[in-house]
């Protein structure tokens, strides 16, 4: 607490632009909560007898705490403002603030994912990699013999199991024919029972000799009750997490790209909130939220009534961009403030990063083939990011100008 107080006092007196972001309070809170929850959940461990948890089931658990966290943080953002209080922020400080908002949203996302991630972590660590490979080998062999109806031939002390060429555990390839001595078969059977029962609470209730008799009488062990609760699924899942990494589902490139868009837009919304009066902001936000409905209505009119094709729609979208830009530029040059222009500026800034995507969509719609779509899309994605970041520098001036002008009423 003392450390926080001294950091708080230092930032207040020397870096008020950072102090108002409250990143020194909210980032450590998020990190500590993340570490604690991750640690606690990981420490609780995963009991191999338990049903394999579904990662997505635990995502909603953190929604309410995160909303509380974000609302509380946003209240602080509403309370203090350097520029509205008469101070000045240079461009570097504005970008610093923007990325601090981005960080807060990123940490919120991490908190949302802490239970799924720690669950995945504890599942992947529930068995060591070496042990899992040994188990898989035993289970594969056992599964082939006791569950897949191998043809068994006994010749003196050698027992041959002829594979029906089916897949075994965890896509480990086709289980080949197996030749075992009677003693080795007994040992293998015992190992199979032990290993299987390690992953299944109900497990195999037969002892070694009973199971061998079972196999010789060509009886097949029934599979587990449900796929998610089956030993096959558990072993598969653990191996997948161990191979690809426990967080691979959250760190996929496409996940990062989509996440990046959301976090960047949320951070931009907070940054815009800091630039304009809250009444204009709320009005702008409501307009933006109603936009999909408006697009639907306009789209319906143009497609159904005027029989527009795709290129017509793209033209309409470009016209809207140009119209908004003209309105904003006119307001910047005007001697008095224009509230609707402030809202339009907000609208335009939020829509600008999507312009490269729209242009790309227009370009692709005119081509008959989609060669190298993904490579191009990554380039467009990066361009969109750059446009969004540059918009901060441009719109900082626009908002400043629009808000400093005297109002009409």
């Amino acid at each position, binding site marked *: 607490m003392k450390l926080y107080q001294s950091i708080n006092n230092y930032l207040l007196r020397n870096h008020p*632009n950072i102090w108002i972001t409250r990143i020194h309070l909210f980032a450590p809170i998020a990190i500590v909560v993340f570490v604690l929850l991750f640690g606690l959940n990981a420490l609780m461990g995963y009991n191999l007898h338990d049903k394999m948890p579904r990662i997505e089931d635990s995502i909603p658990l953190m929604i309410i705490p995160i909303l509380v966290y974000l609302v509380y943080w946003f209240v602080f953002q509403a309370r*203090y403002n350097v520029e509205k209080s*008469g*101070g000045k922020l240079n461009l570097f400080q504005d970008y610093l603030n923007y990325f601090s908002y981005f960080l807060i949203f990123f940490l919120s996302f991490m908190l949302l994912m802490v239970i799924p991630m720690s669950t995945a972590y504890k599942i992947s660590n529930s068995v060591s990699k070496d042990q899992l490979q040994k188990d898989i080998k035993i289970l594969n062999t056992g599964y082939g013999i006791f569950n897949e109806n191998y043809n068994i031939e006994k010749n003196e002390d050698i027992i041959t199991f002829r594979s029906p060429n089916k897949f075994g555990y965890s896509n480990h390839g086709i289980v080949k024919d197996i030749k075992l001595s009677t003693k080795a078969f007994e040992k293998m059977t015992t190992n199979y029972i032990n290993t299987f029962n390690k992953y299944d609470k109900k497990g195999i209730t037969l002892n070694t000799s009973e199971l061998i008799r079972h196999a010789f009488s060509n009886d097949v062990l029934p599979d587990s009750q449900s796929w998610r609760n089956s030993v096959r699924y558990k072993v598969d899942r653990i191996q997948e997490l161990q191979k690809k990494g426990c967080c691979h589902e959250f760190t996929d490139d496409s996940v990062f790209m989509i996440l990046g868009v959301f976090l960047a837009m949320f951070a931009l919304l907070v940054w815009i909130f800091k630039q304009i009066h809250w009444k204009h902001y709320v009005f702008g936000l409501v307009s933006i939220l109603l936009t999909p409905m408006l697009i639907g209505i306009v789209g319906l009119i143009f497609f159904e009534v005027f029989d527009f094709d795709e290129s017509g729609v793209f033209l309409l979208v470009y016209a809207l961009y140009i119209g908004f830009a003209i309105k904003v530029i006119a307001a910047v040059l005007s001697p008095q403030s224009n509230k609707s222009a402030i809202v339009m500026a907000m609208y335009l800034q939020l829509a600008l990063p999507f312009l490269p995507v729209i242009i790309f969509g227009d370009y692709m719609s005119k081509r008959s083939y989609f060669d190298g779509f993904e490579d191009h899309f990554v380039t467009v994605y990066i361009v969109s990011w750059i446009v969004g970041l540059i918009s901060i520098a441009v719109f900082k001036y626009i908002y400043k100008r629009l808000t400093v002008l005297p109002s009409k009423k």
Partner: protein
Amino acid sequence: MNLFTAKNLSKTYSNNGFKLQNINFDLQSGHISGVVGENGNGKTTLLRIVAGDLSFDEGEVTYFGNGTIDTLGWEKIKSRIAYIPQRIPRWYGGLRDNLIFEAAIRNIKSDKADAVIDELVEKLGLTKYIHLKWSEISTGYRLRFQLAKMLIGSPDLLVLDEPIANLDINAQNKFLADLRDIVSDENRKVSVILSSQQLHEIENIADSVIFLKAGQLVYAGEVNKIGESRTHNEFELQGDFDKAFLTNLFKDIEVNQIAKTFHVKVSLELTSSDFIKTILKQNKTVHYFRDISSSTRKLFNQ
């Protein structure tokens, strides 16, 4: 130097049709100017125009000498003006933190910020309350803390809209005395324009006064010159007598009675002391008397 000059300033509200018309006045550097008038006569509109918060339709204004809006730009103009609206926005967090924040964003950083705040709050008699929160202090102290906050920015012009409207008489006097001290402080070089309906208090501290009636400028000039061109003397009084008593006692007297108070107009030859002596000679008691011949108070009666 004229901090602000308005020539033929006009503003019309399209929704209710109210017009502020042909306003001409200037604000002198190092002066306190009071804007007085009844409710809905354009005081707030005028102050908002001065502060650059509201646009005007016609006329010309200059700031800080002969600077026009085009040459100076609104950003620069507003950075030198501190505007305190009628409703002061709430502060969040500790009062000290708020003041330090205000100092830090103006590049008064680290220990220097503390030193500046300590000096300022001591001057305004706020040291005892600086550790409190907004919700823990009275309206009067909130106004003084807001004033302290504004002063940190070292503005050239303080624009205060009805600052003493919600204060008790002691708080009003204390606040106005603070204003006088601030303006008199040679290190600050700040001027004040404030609106109010407390005529007596405003005339006590203001160097000049602007009187508005129905959006028209009735008087703009120095306080001590209000009655210079008058054609009669005006008094307000209360006592144990009636209107007939006054009309019988004085020749050429015009008497209006509002509740217990008589507003009288007499010739310039009849001074206030002669007037009151004549009444007292009739063994009547005077409970209240005020000579408003040189006060904007008389403008309300016109």
